[in-house]
């Protein structure tokens, strides 16, 4: 087990190193480049050369990369130029990540508590109208562009019906005490129930928009896995032993079917981050996704490099954790 974890850790470090190289090269090959962005296109060659020297851009590329790594390890990525001009890019990341984690957790939990039972039911009633309807429904969910769904939800439930707030994470009128940066949790911790409830109301629409795709994936994987497991010999054995249906379903079918679902949930992280970029933009959520969309629009490369690196690292770390969890649940993986 320890060897398995160590090997995966080493692989992860390799991936992160290659990634940092890619992000570095990507930044350098963007059109315009840093110097033009800072001085404008019509700067004199002398001024350009001076700035290049000041920024270390006249050094050989491996020296520049090494400097980039040294600064990155200290969390120094430079100041934002477009998203929150003047603020340190890494600070922007630190300020905004609770917003995105809160939204992403809400969505993935929603997707799990709806997707797994629905997938299980659909599999048990295979080819019934319920099954067909939910399969087609989940496929429609995948076919709708996420940002369009977000617009639709916002248009009907916030703008037309006024049932839910239009944007943001909390009404500005609410005087909430900040503890963790997770607004719902803050409300609960400080017993400001109105502020927690307000934060939940703000979560619903963007959470729904973000949950569609993970829901569709979890639903389909669960359905397929349950169908697979129901035909296994050990289920037939359990049936012929005369075990109650309840025991068979809980212990033999569901527990085995959930194995592939666990891996899928880990793989949804990337999808959630992408979805967050689109959803947060529509709802002005103030999280990392919105910052990503804004920094592309405003060419804020200092912020972009932090976000790209951190997103990728998050994805890699979560999948490492999922792999470990998987090895703990399923001993067959470890021996391979």
């Amino acid at each position, binding site marked *: 087990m320890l060897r398995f974890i160590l090997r995966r850790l080493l692989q992860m470090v390799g*991936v992160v190193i290659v*990634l940092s190289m890619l992000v570095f090269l990507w930044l350098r*090959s963007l*059109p315009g480049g840093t110097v033009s962005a800072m001085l404008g296109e019509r700067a004199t060659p002398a001024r350009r050369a001076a700035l290049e020297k000041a920024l270390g851009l006249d050094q050989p590329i491996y020296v520049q990369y090494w400097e980039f790594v040294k600064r990155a390890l200290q969390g120094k990525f430079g100041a934002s130029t477009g998203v929150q001009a003047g603020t340190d890019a890494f600070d922007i990341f630190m300020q905004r990540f609770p917003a995105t984690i809160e939204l992403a957790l809400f969505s993935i939990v929603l997707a799990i508590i709806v997707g797994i039972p629905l997938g299980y039911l659909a599999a048990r009633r295979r080819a019934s109208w319920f099954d067909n309807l939910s399969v087609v429904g989940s496929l429609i969910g995948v076919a709708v562009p996420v940002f369009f769904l977000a617009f639709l939800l916002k248009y009907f439930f916030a703008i037309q019906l006024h049932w839910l707030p239009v944007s943001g994470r909390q009404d500005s009128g609410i005087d909430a005490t900040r503890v963790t940066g997770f607004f719902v949790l803050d409300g609960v911790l400080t017993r400001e129930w109105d502020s927690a409830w307000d934060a939940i109301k703000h979560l619903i629409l963007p959470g729904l928009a973000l949950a569609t795709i993970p829901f569709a994936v979890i639903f389909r994987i669960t359905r397929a896995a349950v169908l697979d497991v129901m035909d296994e010999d050990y289920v037939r054995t359990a049936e012929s032993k005369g075990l109650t249906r309840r025991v068979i379903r809980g212990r033999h079918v569901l527990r085995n079917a959930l194995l592939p679902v666990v891996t899928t949930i880990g793989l949804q992280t990337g999808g959630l981050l992408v979805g967050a970029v*689109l959803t947060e933009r529509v709802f002005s959520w103030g999280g990392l996704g919105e910052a990503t969309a804004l920094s592309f629009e405003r060419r804020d490369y200092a912020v972009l490099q932090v976000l790209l690196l951190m997103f990728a690292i998050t*994805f890699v770390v979560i999948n490492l954790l999922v792999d470990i969890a998987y090895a703990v649940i399923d001993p067959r993986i470890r021996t391979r």
Partner: protein
Amino acid sequence: MPNPLNPKTRKQRIDDLAASTAGKGPAGGGVAVAERSVADAGHVEESAGVSLIASAWRRLRGNPVFLLGATISALFVLLAIFSPLLAPHDPTARLLIDQVRPQSNPIPGSQPGYPLGADSVGRDILSRLIVGSRQTLIVGVLATLFGFAGGLTLGTLSGAFGGWVDSLVMRLVDVMLSIPSLLLAVSIAALASKPSQWTVIIAIAVVQVPIFARLLRGSLLAQRSSDHVLAARALGVKRSAIVFRHMLPNALGPVIVQATLVLAGAIIDAAALSFLGVGNPDDRQPEWGQMLGAAQEYIYDHPALAVWPALCIIIVALGFTLMGESLREALDPKSRR
């Protein structure tokens, strides 16, 4: 049917053998089966009646989900081909520009001859939607094809050679997969100094490369140790011939299914790129994703402007997805009960 007493050339025999074991699936082709197949390679074709593709087709013909998806996809392709003949107006002509008032009436509404109204510069929406089908199809198909070609190259290198080539390629694939797909696409699109339809196509294609590569590698690796490859190797077939004639054709099934799904995703991703401001800025050649991205400016006052291209995207993406998913299920040996 060839006579077993009149043996075919060696190459043909191996091909038949490869085809037969592939048809039975990796699970069915045990050692006993392989030995029998080698003994009477000439008879193998008789059992090809239940090949994977034939039985998949038999089940697909009666599957309403597949038929719906295939119908939508076929109609979409026909529309794309004949769109210039079907559009009532020139999609680039600013026919209703006289009615556009930036303050009071930025979007001319529905009227005789213009059932869906016009956009903010007075161009007929219906004609733009009809003509836009072609560009949408081109973006989807080219992005899928390029992604497929890249994945085919990497996946074949990796799955056919194994060893350090495999490790190297797969680490590269891991890195590509660790960047969330749309972010990777946006990052690549942002590299272009002059964004165009091509940057959109390439950006979406690059994201698909690691997915296709993984899929192909997995399939090729499973075959490396299978009996038909062993047989071919034992007969002294060259490595390149084994890879290209015996392994790749058998690996293509799941890849083609994936391509159908990727096509749907590519059309949706093109819209997302436009939404994030890195799409094709040139709107003389209409494309649905671009129309949807451009409509966000007016989305709360004139939602119809966004709804029409979005509906087109949803229907077409659903069509390809339904087709791809039912193909996947039909080709899955496990569901052939």
